[in-house]
Structures are given as structure tokens and as C-alpha cells.
């Protein structure tokens, strides 16, 4: 996994609540057996005026001007500002894959759906939860050229006027993200604990180990 430390970028404000993972990456693109290449189809049904199919050359497709990402000033945004319950619905990790492949490194919103939130951390994508009043303020301020600096180590967001907003994050997730660590390797360091558990459990509930 790619490590994440700090980013400074234009902020794309996506002013919708309950953005579901079907909207983030529609199902026809889930047929891919790869982890990459989803970026051109991110928000496909909102982003283009035609119907998207896997393998299409997206550079020639008609863009929907209503989607904020299609406005030239937000094209290079690495930070996405969202509303409540972003990433609800399906557990598809293709959603964070698509966001990362597109170029996003940070999401900021008042809340994220549980499975999606968890999936982000496996892919070097930092979801930041802020108080809804702060998110409201960012939405008011976020316009053409509005940049934020997100520093994971310091757990701060710095606004163009120099205001610093702190954010909370779980210590182990922060550590893994800062160092780009492989979670499986970390867990396998506990292989003896897992074997000891299996032995214990097989005595208490042997029917679970008959198969």
C-alpha cells in the first residue's frame, strides 16, 4: 500500500448526502479482475451524459457539466468534500480503488459508512470525519482555487486563511497509513496467538473444526 503523509490540494465540494458505492463506481465496472483502472469510471453515471461500459475510451465521452468534478477548476483536486454517510451501500472496495485511481487522497465529511471507511485505509486513502458545522463552513468557503493542506502526522487541516482544524484518527490506522504497512504481515506476527486460539476453541466448540 502507498503511504500517505501530507497533501496540499484544491478541494472538490460534492454537496450530496448518502452518496452510495453504486454511484461511486457502477456495477458494470466491477467485472474487472484487477485493482486498477477504475478512475475514468468514478461517478460514471453523474460524470458523463452517455451510458458507461467497461473498456470505453472516456476521453471522448460527453461530460455532464453539473458534476462539480467536471468544472475545470476542480480537475486536479486531490481532496473531496462530502456530506453525511458517504460510501453507504455495497462493500465493494472498487469504490476506494476508483477514488484513488482518479487521484483523490483525502475525503472530508461529517460521516462515512462503516465498511467503506474501513476499506479506505487499506488503500492509502484518508477519510477525515469533522463536525458537521465545520464541514458546512468548508462547503461555504470551498470555491475556485480554495486549497487545503492535510497533514496526517500532525492531524491537521490548514485553510487558505491559515486556520488550523484538528482531526481525530485511530492511532494504528494512522501508523499503517503513514508507513504504508501491509496488514497481513502485521497479523501474521500473531500466528502463534491464532493457533493457540484455534486449539482453545476446538475444545470448547469442536463442531466448528470438523470440516
Amino acid at each position, binding site marked *: 500500500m502507498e503511504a500517505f503523509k501530507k497533501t496540499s490540494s484544491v478541494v472538490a465540494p460534492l*454537496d*450530496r*448526502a*448518502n452518496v*452510495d458505492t*453504486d*454511484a461511486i463506481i*457502477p*456495477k*458494470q465496472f*466491477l*467485472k*474487472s*479482475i*484487477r*485493482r486498477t483502472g477504475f478512475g475514468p469510471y468514478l461517478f460514471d*453515471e453523474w460524470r458523463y451524459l452517455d*451510458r458507461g461500459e*467497461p*473498456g470505453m475510451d472516456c476521453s471522448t465521452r460527453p461530460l455532464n457539466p453539473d458534476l462539480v468534478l467536471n468544472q475545470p477548476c476542480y480537475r486536479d483536486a486531490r481532496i473531496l468534500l462530502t*456530506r*453525511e*454517510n458517504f460510501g*453507504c*451501500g*455495497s*462493500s*465493494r*472496495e472498487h469504490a*476506494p480503488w476508483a477514488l484513488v485511481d482518479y487521484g483523490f487522497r483525502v475525503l472530508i465529511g461529517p*460521516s462515512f*459508512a*462503516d*465498511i467503506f471507511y*474501513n*476499506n479506505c485505509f*487499506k488503500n492509502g486513502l484518508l477519510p477525515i470525519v469533522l463536525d458537521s458545522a465545520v464541514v458546512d463552513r468548508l462547503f461555504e468557503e470551498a470555491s475556485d482555487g480554495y486549497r487545503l493542506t492535510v497533514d496526517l502526522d500532525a492531524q491537521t487541516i490548514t485553510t487558505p486563511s491559515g486556520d488550523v482544524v484538528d482531526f481525530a484518527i*485511530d*492511532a*494504528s490506522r494512522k*501508523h499503517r497509513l503513514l508507513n504504508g504497512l501491509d*496488514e*497481513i504481515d*502485521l*497479523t*501474521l506476527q*500473531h*500466528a502463534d*496467538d*491464532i493457533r493457540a*486460539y*484455534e486449539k482453545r*476453541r476446538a475444545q*470448547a*466448540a*469442536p*463442531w*466448528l473444526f*470438523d*470440516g
Partner: protein
Amino acid sequence: MVPKTLYDKLWDDHLVCYLADGSALLYIDRHLVHEVTSPQAFEGLRLARRQPWRRSANLAVADHNVPTTETDRKSGIADPISRLQVETLDINCAEFGITEFDMSDPRQGIVHVIGPEQGATLPGMTVVCGDSHTSTHGAFGALAFGIGTSEVEHVLATQCLVQKKSHNMLIRVDGEVDAGVTAKDIVLAIIGSIGTAGGSGYAIEFAGTAITAQSMEGRMTICNMAIEAGARAGLIGVDDVTIDYTEGRPFAPEGERWEQAVAAWKQLRSDDDAHFDKVVTLDAATIKPQVTWGTSPEMTAAVDQVVPDPADEPDPIKKAGMERALRYMGLRPGTAITDIAVDKVFIGSCTNSRIEDLRAAAQVVRGKSIADAVKLALVVPGSGLVKRQAEREGLDKIFIAAGFEWREPGCSMCLAMNADRLEEGERCASTSNRNFEGRQGYGSRTHLVSPAMAAAAAIAGRFVDVRSMQADAGGCR
């Protein structure tokens, strides 16, 4: 001893160890695998030269991409990308030694239908799958939740997941529901009440007399949609209904082992004075058949209501969401739900494709015909075994005589990854779980309902209160 909730007990039983930061390594008893969220996980194992930790804990099946017509099953999947994904599952399972029900296996079906049907899901287990509707299995007093592909790889490699404990929520539904009001209506009413983020960060235990009165099929419908209320896991305590359903299933324990297991499973309920962080209560008697009108499962109304007016919504973000939903759905505020006409009807999905669901729909359909305006009405059984059972009971004949198509098992039009989908602007009465924009096809319009309500809509060509139809038919249930 501190009284525990069911979730607390399941958590404690599966705790391998706590990690330095307070998160936990949780042991996974059953890992269900399907073709969409697993290829990248197997590829990850291959790249890291890892093997599955415990092969027998895994069970795989292809369900999302599979065709549902007999001809297409025989000739193979037409879409080359879908075909490659299904073949990749076959190859991965063969290479890594994982049991798979492939497309030609009579036991093939939707992963959340076959797990319980085979007894691969047992009370007291931790069950995970790269699919958010894994919450279904919580109906067995199991801790079951959906995971992403990185976690699929993690479970394959370590038989564990790194988890933070959720909070405990209790949703109590007491009293008796009206005839014609089903598990689907109960869970939609719950989601309408607490919202799609209401359960975020919680494991939801469903309890109360209206819940325990449900069969296992009904309980699975309710836990299935816990994720639509934002909760990764839904749970229901074990009782005789759970144990009776499980007995004799192919993967269930037998003989002395069975007796031993049953004794342990009887403890799988929340202690009387256990603490819940949040408690929600609903009165079953007030729940009516539900029809969703918008593009989020929380946008639901009773069949005798009208489409709500965004002008009445004080919260500006919610109001904007309602306006966008009504535009997408092509509906005007104030329209009676029963004035909404449907183009297609879909009876199926991991929410409502089990034998009892098909019986309920067939009872409404029996001796009637689908309305002329209904272009397509599909019944897609949840598994090959459900299909066979329905055929033994003659349900297929009832559906076919009424003008329904009787299909092979799979996820089908719930998410339209195979050829079964809605055309742009088409409106569907669907027994599935998500009414998101584009879910059943580009520009599709989904109304979530129970199997009986979907069947009634197919006959009438618009939504009707199934209770009135049943009364016409002589008050049958």
C-alpha cells in the same frame, strides 16, 4: 458476572488477542466467497506467495454475474468480461483448494441463501464475505458482516480480521403485525424510522415478539437489510426456530456433536439486563405494507400514503436529496402510492428469494394474470435447491400461468450485473434491497417491496395494498 449482549458474547468467543492500540484480532469461522470481490484477493495471495490459513473454513459460489435463463446457462455466459470473472473464481478455488459450488452445481445460488441452506452458517459463528449483505447470517445468532477485498485476502491468509468493537443497539418490535405485513415491511419501516445512517457504528440486535414470531426466512430478510440502516451486523438471538432450521443441514454437526452444539447455542441470546448503547422500539401493529418512493431505502412510505413533499422538509440537505430523488424517480409530491404504475416486477435477491418468499408471492398470484402493461415479471429463486423445492410444490406453474418468467438462481436484477436489467426510465416493483440510482440498470427506477406486494403489483399493474387483494380472495393469508 457483567450481563452481556449477544454481540458481546460473540465478540468475546472470537477474540484471539487485543493489539497494542486496543483493536482486536477476531477469529473468523466461516468465509463465504463470490466472484466479484475475490479475484484481487486471490491475486494478492499469489503475489505474496501465501496459502489459505484454513481451507475448510471457506465456501465459494458464483452468483452476481451468472445468467438466469436455462439456455444461457447451457451455452455459457455471453458477456466475455462476466465470463472471465466467473472462470477466474473456478480457477482460484481449484488452485487454492477451496470448495466451490460452480454454475452447473444444483446447490449453486446466492451466497447468502446457500450458506444457511447448507448449514455452512451456524449459530455462534463469525461469518464474513466480501458482500455487504452478509449481515443476513446474523439471523442465526451469528456475528456476520460484509468486508472489502483487502479483508477477503486478510481472512484467506490469516483466518482473522483486525476489528474495533461496535456499539450495541437494540431494536425491539413488539406486538402482532397485520396479515399481509411481512418481515420486509418491518425492516423497511425500521430503516424509514432510523435512517440509512442510523445504525452506523452499531451492531443491531432485533428483538421483540414481532421478530421472534418470524420464520428463519423472515429473520434473514430483516438482518439482510441491517446494512441498509448503516449497521454492518444485524443479529437475532437463538431459539427453537433457529435450531429446528439448522438441524440436518449438510454442513451442520450430527449426533453427539449436535447435542453439544445445541447446548452451547441456547446461550446465544442477550442477558436480560444487558446494556445497549441505544434502544429503538416500534409497535408492530402500526406497520403497514411498505413501498419505497425514492433513491435511498429510508425513503419509504406505507402503501396507503402519498409521495411526500420536499417543501415539508426543514433540513436543507435532506430536502435537496428528496428533490433529486423525486426528479430521478419521475414522481410528483402528493401522488398516491397506489397510483404509481410499474413496468417490470422482480421477485428475487438475497433479501427475498427463499422458499417462503416464493410461497407468499405465489399465493397472491394464484389463478390471476399479470397486467397487460407489465412488460416483464421475473421470479429468480435464491438457489437451485429453493427452485427445486418450489417446483415440487407447483409454485413454478402458478407463476408461469400468470405470465411470470421462472428463472435459474442468482443475484440477477437486484444489481443487474448479468443480462437481467431495467431499461432507462423503467419502473420496477422489486423485492431486492437497494433503490439507488442506476442500481437495476442505467436510469432504472426501483421501488422496494415485499414478495407479496411485488406479486400484487404485477397483477394490478400498479402498487396496491396486498391486504385488500387478500381480502377479495376470501381473507387468505
